[in-house]
């Protein structure tokens, strides 16, 4: 796990580096709490019973919540990390009450007058190793010259 209180600098990372993964299990209650906070009160996010009435196998995690987990993965890496672009493709249902792991790997570094950025590939996989959500991100990094 990263340390959001410790700075991470552009100069200290390399293409191919993996960020500390985000490991968690979302409870049914957490999923519905998120759905309400995100103004998504649908039954599919509330309970297995209500989700099944919509033809789903059970309660599912909102895609927006998976996006939020990707954002946490990046911002919990360290201080000075600013997400500028975040993209996610929902490839399969994400379920509550199973272990999940979110991964990020740096695929590119680039610097310009607008700042120093990294590009990352993102994966959210479940306990069976199935890649339920994939994505990419562009992150503005602090530099040692101008933290």
């Amino acid at each position, binding site marked *: 796990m990263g340390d*959001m209180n410790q700075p991470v600098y552009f100069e200290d990372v390399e293409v191919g580096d993996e960020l500390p993964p985000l490991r*968690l299990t979302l409870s049914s209650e*957490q999923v519905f*709490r*998120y759905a*309400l*906070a*995100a*103004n*998504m009160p649908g039954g599919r996010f509330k309970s297995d019973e209500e989700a099944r009435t919509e033809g789903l196998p059970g309660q599912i995690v909102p*895609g*927006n*919540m998976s*996006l*939020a*987990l990707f*954002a*946490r993965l*990046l*911002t*919990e890496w360290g201080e000075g990390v600013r*997400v*500028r*672009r*975040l*993209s*996610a*493709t*929902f490839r399969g249902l994400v379920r509550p009450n199973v272990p999940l792991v979110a991964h990020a790997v740096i695929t590119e570094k680039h610097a310009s007058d607008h700042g120093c950025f990294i590009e990352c590939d993102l994966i959210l996989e479940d306990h069976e190793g199935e890649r339920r959500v994939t*994505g990419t991100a562009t992150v503005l990094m602090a530099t040692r010259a101008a933290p």
Partner: protein
Amino acid sequence: MEFDRTTFEPITAAEIREYAAACGEVNPAYTGEVDLVAPPTFAVRLRGRHFMPKELHGLGRNGFDAGKDMELGDPIRPGDVLTAVSVVHDVYEKTGRSGTMNFIVFRTTVTNQDEKMVAIIDQRMMFR
């Protein structure tokens, strides 16, 4: 084609903290008492009057959320008055193992009271 333009009530600190807590955020930037800002994905919770053009309402129940692309601008802070403008950004078809799928991309541009961009959100919806 613009199908929705909604200006929301000022964002409150309570909304920001609740969204952060619901995401499992512990970063004091999103949960604290000083210089509170919204977590990066906060703008996805904005709901305009229309999710899609009226002409497409019949598709609504058969759609799946295929993904999202967000570009983030100025941070969202308590007191911000946000305006979200939604358009149909793209329509395309893909054929895969399970057959032909139709995709519609709705783009929502969110600006604050100073007309600064805070988020551009592309919502990809898949319909069979």
